[in-house]
Structure formats: C-alpha cells, structure tokens
C-alpha cells in the first residue's frame, strides 16, 4: 500500500489553519434575516396566549411565528438524523403549544438585525399555564405527570414505546438463563451506577442559513453530519415535498454526534420558506448548553457473576436512560449501553433490559459513543471491583475472560468476531503503561498519590442492514479525478481518508483526487457521518467505485487501442497493451473520454454492511490524586487501539487523543445538573468545564491492528470507540488511591476528598 496507511496531511488543513472563510456563518449572505428563538422559562407549561403586536411594530422585524402560525395539520417529526422510518418517536413540532423543558421554543423571530430581534424577543408577551415538571428519570415510568400526552405522538418502529407511560422505548434481550447462572456463581457483584448528561461542546455551535434558489427551492446550508436526513426532516416538518429542499454542508466546526440531530435547521427553514428571504440562525453557547442534545443521563444496575478463579459467567444489566423532553436517539442509544460492554466478555449468559424515559429535562441526543460510554463505565467498573475483591490483577482478570477472534457473539446480535486484537491490546497496554513496575498506587513527594486504573472498550462500525455509504468517482480533464461523497467531514478528515482509498485503488497521487461533499443535489446518497460508519462503509463504496472506474478506463483504452480489455494493463498513469504495441496516458484517455465516447467514466457505488465489526481499545489512566483536596489530575493516558488497518495513522491517532480527552472530561469535570425548577446550571463554558490542555496530562496512543476483511484495506472504525475507556479507568485509579469506589460520573473532587477523609477517620 502506497497511500493507504500513510499519514498524509488533511486536504483542507492549510485552509483551516490559516483561518479561511469556509464555515456556515462565514458563507451566509450578508442580507440574511437574523433568526432567534423565544424559549420557555418553564420546564413544563402550556402556552395560553401570545401577544406579538408590539414586537411586530419594530421596523426591522420581518416576522414572528408561534404555534398558531403552523398549519393545523402539521405532522409530528423527530429531529434525530436516522434512516427512515426512524426508531426515534415522532414527538416534535416546530413550535408546540405544550412546552416540555426550560428552553423549548415558544416563538421564532426574524429581523434585519440583531438589535431589532433582541428587542422583539423582549416585547413578545406570553401567557403561560405553568405545570408541575417531571425531573427525576428514576420515577418517570408510569408517573402521573405525562410529558407527551398528545394523541398524535407516534412511534414508527416497534421499540416498546408508550407515551402514556413516559416510555420512549423499552428493550429486552438475553442469551442463556442469567438467573440460573448467577445462582451458581461464587460471587455476584450487584452495583448501581449513574452517569450524568454531558455536552458535545463542539467549538462551532449549531448554525444554519437558508436561501431560495433559481428554481424556487429551499436551500439549507449548515453544520450537519446528516445532510440527507436533514432534507427529509425539514420537508416533513414544513409539510413540503422533499424535491423542494436541497441541503449543503460546508466545513463543520466539530460534531461529535451533536450535529446528527436537526437542532437548528427547521427554524430558518420555516422563515425562509414563508418569507422567501435568506435567513440564518446561529446558536449562542448558552443555547448550546441549555437547549441542545447532550448524552443521555443513565442509571444502571449491574449484576456480575463470577467464580473465585476469576471466571466471569454472567452479566445482567438494567438501564434507565433519560431522554428528556424528546426522544431523539432515545431508543437506539440505550442499545449500546448494554450490548457493547457485555460483549467484551465470554459469558454463559447475559440479560439486558432498558427503559428509556421522558422527563422535563433538556432533550438528549447522539454523542460520540452513543450510549456505550455509560454502559462501559458500569460494566468495566464492576469488573475492576471484582478484580479487587478477588485480589486479582485487573489485566489478568480480563485476559481470562475476553472474547477472541472467531468467537460467536450472542450479545452482539449473533455476529462473529471477525477481527480482534483485544488480547494484543491488553498485553501492549500493560507494557506501555508500566503497569507492573509502577504499581497501582504510590505516594509522591509532594504528598499526592499517583495511581493507575484500566478499562477496555469496543464499539461498532456502521449499522448493519441499514446504513448506506455512497461514492461517485469521475475522471476529469488532465487525468485527475473527482470524488463526490455524501458523508460529512466534520473535521475528522474523512474527505482525505476517502481520497486515500480512491488514490490507492487508482494508483494515482492523492492530489489527483479532488473531493466534493456534501450537496444533496450532487452527492450520492449516504446516510451520513455517524455510527462510526464513514471509513468502514463509505470507504467500501469508494473502493468499489474506484475499482469499477479502473475497469471502465481499461474498456475505453481497449476500444481506442482496438484490442480486448484483458489485453490492457492500467498502472494508474497509462493504459498499455500487454504486448507493448500501444499505450495511452491517463490524460489522453481523459481527453478521449470527452469526444465521441460512450463509456461513462463516472461511477457511483453504494454499499451496505451485513455486520458491524467492532474496533477495540484498552486504556490505562495514570492519575495524580490530592487525597486532601480531592483534586484529580491525569498525568498520562495510555491508549492501545485495534481499529483494523489505519487508513491514515496520524488522523486515527488524533481521533484517539481527542476522544480520550473528551472521556477525561466526562470522568472528572463535565456535568449537567438541574435546579429544582428544571433550569440547567452549567449553561456556559464558564460553568461547564471541558478539559483545557492543563487538565489531561500527556497522551500515548499506539495501534495493534487486526485485519477486517469486510472493510476497505482491512479498516474498521475509530471515531466513537476512543471516548469509552477514561471513565472507568480513571474511576478505578481513584479507587486504587483512595480505597473507596465511585459509582457516578463525573467523580467530583468533593466525592474524592470526603471519601478519603472518611477513610482516614476509620
């Protein structure tokens, strides 16, 4: 391989690093109407009346819309960017009369400048009927307060949803007889875990601008991971044909799943469709922290059955996932909470039961890991505690119990573990971190304690039988190529990675492949960039398109050289007859393809998958703990990853490093908490603390690749996997330092200090 598995810089790197205007708000027309939302101050309320007269008198105000301005027959929809019919219930309206969380939109205001819009927002008079909110997910099921009592609420898929019971979904799955297994175990660890909601905090907040094109169609340009889903969702929300909607994705300033939900698009879309004028919405950070789509807060009870020799025989998990006011991604995220961590272990039986409940909290959504980080914290913490109980090394306990290549995976939809270097990842992580030499806990001269903790993780690669990857490859003038994709590069570098795959197959320079994405009018259909699907699935589409284009180049060359196609050898630069009697350069073929030619050098490939091969990771956290103040500072994090072949090792490494630091934030400092009235306390980057570069210590990331035959050049996914290990690994390190266990994320300095103080007293 010449280009695959090399660390070429991203194609857009220099443009980004020199600050070129390539993002949504840099590109928005200057005469855009400014769109902003009046949001509910109550966690639960009914809009009795809205008086917008005073607001409309402001000269620069173009429009004020409330629920009364929507068509009476407006259908409910989901904002979740998922393949239709979506598993997420259709429970949203653009503007609803019932308000379900602090921040739910009450009115849309559009005006010619910020000042006018701000003034208008203050002048809209709303009369609310304030209702008692439901804020505790543990009592939400069958509560007398119902978050979605409406009759037109609809679940399109059989996910066990029942709005009258506050159930967004209910799931059960099992293999073997878990009760019998646990009854027969030497030890059954029964623990309850809790992970708080956390925010994606991509640096670019949600934003969208809309225009009307030459043909009277609605053009939506915005920061989204799911352009094709946005087209469908907006068309449904506005009640207009999908053919009237076009979606363009420029550069995105980070996504992490946040932009897999259609959080900002519908509002300017409504404004532009009704006024036929360009409009834009740019979410403030405040809105981004209070009215967005964070990770689902989850309560988990884990029962882990094992024998004294360390054999883990059964895992039983019950999860309550808090989807908040709306069910975007609710039914699907929870699935990963159980199936990803349980699958890491070879057990005789397992059971996973989950309730996804509605509350009057901010609606949850998709965030890197998609439910897996919660479950991974619970199960890996339980396994770490089991190791301590057994007096067994945490690595050794894993070595005895992990799945291996070729294993049948009952808790992973009956798939086979086709590629797996988890065993090698364990060995390497142990060595790399100095696990044995350093010891789990040692006192430092400055009075702090340095401790180690570890955890494993897996994820999937695309959603089998559902996700679609698409790629179009075209030969252009001078013998260069255009690669058109529908997957969204959100900074991860998929434009470059997919071009590397194309260049490898076509044996050309990377610079010879220009990438275009995304425009729903021009790109081939692709489900979008989520579910760890792009490299694995869209990568396969690129591979197939490139292989087919090669074949067609050979066909054209054979025609021109008047021979059979199998007499032609194409080496990327020229197509030559085997006998040496003639050859055409690629540039000559390109010219010939544009004159009297009927061989289309324009190939579209579409791929699906029949499996979701898991990538694996082992993480070791080395952490300094001030047991008196409770401050915890990671000093070094070691990550060993099996993502199959790295198409671009640098980008895979940076993905891993970024995921680890997000995981560190989730473990130690990121927290969404609510006031008794349902307001979010952590409503800014001043109050919600993501790690700065002083908070994560050093990172060492290495790869132990397996080879996944179904992926392009052996690749699996990496994007989501890498956020999973810090939570349980850091919690374990703190436990090793303090001698007490922690069952909730984030682990706060207060919890650490008070636990250490209590232990000292004993």
């Amino acid at each position: 391989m010449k280009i695959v598995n090399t660390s070429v810089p991203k194609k857009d790197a220099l443009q980004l690093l020199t600050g070129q205007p390539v993002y949504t708000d840099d590109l928005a027309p200057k005469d855009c109407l400014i769109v902003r939302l009046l949001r509910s101050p109550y966690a639960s309320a009914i809009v009795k009346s809205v008086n917008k007269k005073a607001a409309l008198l402001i000269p620069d105000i173009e429009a004020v819309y409330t629920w009364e301005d929507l068509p009476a027959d407006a259908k409910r929809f989901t904002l979740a960017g998922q393949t239709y019919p979506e598993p997420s219930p259709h429970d949203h309206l653009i503007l609803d009369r019932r308000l379900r969380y602090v921040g739910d939109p009450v009115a849309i205001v559009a005006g010619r400048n910020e000042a006018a819009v701000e003034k208008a927002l203050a002048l809209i008079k709303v009369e609310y009927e304030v209702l008692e909110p439901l804020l505790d997910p543990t009592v939400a099921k069958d509560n007398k307060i119902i978050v979605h009592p409406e009759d037109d609420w609809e679940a399109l898929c059989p996910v066990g949803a029942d709005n009258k019971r506050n159930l967004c979904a209910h799931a059960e799955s099992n293999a073997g007889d878990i009760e019998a297994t646990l009854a027969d175990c030497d030890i059954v660890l029964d623990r309850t875990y809790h992970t708080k909601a956390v925010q994606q905090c991509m640096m670019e907040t949600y934003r969208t601008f809309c225009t009307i094109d030459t043909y009277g169609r609605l053009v939506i340009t915005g920061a989204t991971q799911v352009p094709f889903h946005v087209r469908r969702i907006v068309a449904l929300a506005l009640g207009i044909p999908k053919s009237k909607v076009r979606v363009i994705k420029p550069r995105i300033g980070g996504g992490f799943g946040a932009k897999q939900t259609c959080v900002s698009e519908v509002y300017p879309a409504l404004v532009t469709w009704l006024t036929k004028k360009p409009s834009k919405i740019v979410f403030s950070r405040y809105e981004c922290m209070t009215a967005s789509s964070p990770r689902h807060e989850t309560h988990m009870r884990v029962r882990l059955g094992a024998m004294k020799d360390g054999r883990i025989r059964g895992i039983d998990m019950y999860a309550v996932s808090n989807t908040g006011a709306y069910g975007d991604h609710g039914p699907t995220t929870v699935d990963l909470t159980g199936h990803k961590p349980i699958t890491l272990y070879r057990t005789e039986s397992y059971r996973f039961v989950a309730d996804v409940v509605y509350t009057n909290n901010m609606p949850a959504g998709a965030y890197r890991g998609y439910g897996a980080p919660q479950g991974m914290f619970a199960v890996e913490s339980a396994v770490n505690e089991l190791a301590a109980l057994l007096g067994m090394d945490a690595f050794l306990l894993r070595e005895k119990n992990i799945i291996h290549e070729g294993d049948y995976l009952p808790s992973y939809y009956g798939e086979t573990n086709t590629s797996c270097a988890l065993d090698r990842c364990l060995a390497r992580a142990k060595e790399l971190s100095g696990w044995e030499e350093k010891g789990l806990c040692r006192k430092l001269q400055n009075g702090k304690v340095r401790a180690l903790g570890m955890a494993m993780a897996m994820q999937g690669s695309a959603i089998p039988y559902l996700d679609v990857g698409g790629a179009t490859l075209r030969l252009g003038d001078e013998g260069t190529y255009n690669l058109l994709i529908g997957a969204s590069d959100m900074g991860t570098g998929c434009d470059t990675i997919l071009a590397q795959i194309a260049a490898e197959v076509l044996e050309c320079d990377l610079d010879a492949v220009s990438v275009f994405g995304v425009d729903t009018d021009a790109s081939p259909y692709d489900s979008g960039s989520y579910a760890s699907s792009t490299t694995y699935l869209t990568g396969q589409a690129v591979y197939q398109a490139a292989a087919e284009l090669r074949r067609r180049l050979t066909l054209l060359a054979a025609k021109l050289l008047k021979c059979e196609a199998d007499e032609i050898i194409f080496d990327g630069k020229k197509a030559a007859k085997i006998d040496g009697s003639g050859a055409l350069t690629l540039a000559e073929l390109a010219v010939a393809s544009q004159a009297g030619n009927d061989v289309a050098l324009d190939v579209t490939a579409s791929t699906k998958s029949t499996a979701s091969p898991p990538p694996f990771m082992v993480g070791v956290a080395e952490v300094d703990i001030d047991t008196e103040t409770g401050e915890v500072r990671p000093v070094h994090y070691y990550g060993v990853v099996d993502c199959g072949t790295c198409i671009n090792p640098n980008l895979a490494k940076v993905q891993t490093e970024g995921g680890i630091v997000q995981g560190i934030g989730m473990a130690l400092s990121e927290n969404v908490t609510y006031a008794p009235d349902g307001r979010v306390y952590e409503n800014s980057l001043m109050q919600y603390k993501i790690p700065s570069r002083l908070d994560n210590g050093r990172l060492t990331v290495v790869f132990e690749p397996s080879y996944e035959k179904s992926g392009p050049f052996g690749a699996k996914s990496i994007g989501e996997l890498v956020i999973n290990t810090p939570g349980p690994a850091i919690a374990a390190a703190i436990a090793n330092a303090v001698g007490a266990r922690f069952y909730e994320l984030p682990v706060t300095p207060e919890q650490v200090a008070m636990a250490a103080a209590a232990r000292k007293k004993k």
Partner: protein
Amino acid sequence: MELTLTLNGKKMSRLIEPGILLLDFLRSEGCYSVKRGCETSNCGLCTVFLDDVPVLSCSLLAARAQGRRVTTLEGLRQEAEELAAFIAAQGAEQCGFCNPGFMMNAIALLREKAEPSVDEIRDYLAGNLCRCSGYEGQLRGILAFIEWRKSEKGGAAR
C-alpha cells in the same frame, strides 16, 4: 463614533456603534478567521493581537482599539503558514474552528519566547480550548516547529 486604527497593517477609519465588540467589528471588516465560541471569555477562539499582545476580541470594545494596531490571522499569513505546516503534519487541525485563535496565541508565544518548554507551551495556550484534538497533536506540532526553526537558524549561521 469614528474609529481609527491600523488593521493588519492598513490604517483605516470607520464609523462604528460605540457598543460594538472588536470581534464583531473585525468580522464586519472581512476578518472571518476571528470566531466566536462562547459568550463568557472562556474559549480563546477570538484571539487577536492588540499592539502585538494577544487578547480576546469578544471582550474588548472596538472603540478601545482607537489609534492602536490590531492584527488577525489574515494579517499573518506567512508566519501562520510556517507553523501551520507542522500542525497539519500531525493532523491536529481537525475541525479547524479553534485554529485561528490557537494559531494567534501560539505565534504570540513563539514571538515572546523562541524555545518554550512543554510546560510553558501548555501554560501559555491554556486559554485556547480545542474539543477535537486532545491537544497532544498541537503540542507535537509546535515542538517540531521549534526544532525546525532551530535547525534552520543553525543552518543559516553555518
């Protein structure tokens, strides 16, 4: 009110609203590298130079730039491209949205101190949040750049 300043080396006068923040003024002048990432002065995305000192343009009235020099990444293209190549070589630009603020502050650091230590780099850039990279790749890039600059200078002296 009238504002006279030197923006990226060009002296200019503009009529401005007295309350406009420097960030919004700069974007209205086409300096799109200057980004807003928060409202609470925490993210560092909007970093520009005021008379060569890095400041948050989201927290400074444009009026306060009266008679002073303001520099954005648009005005530092060549200096930026040198460092940028080393960040790109690590793949650490990622989504790019924090890059301009990060680049500005990194340039400020490297002007103040040619060969900062790892701790000095991390301290100086602590106010530049990045959610993609985990910071380690940015650090590798800066260290590689410092090494290159040392060898370039050494080479020139020889």
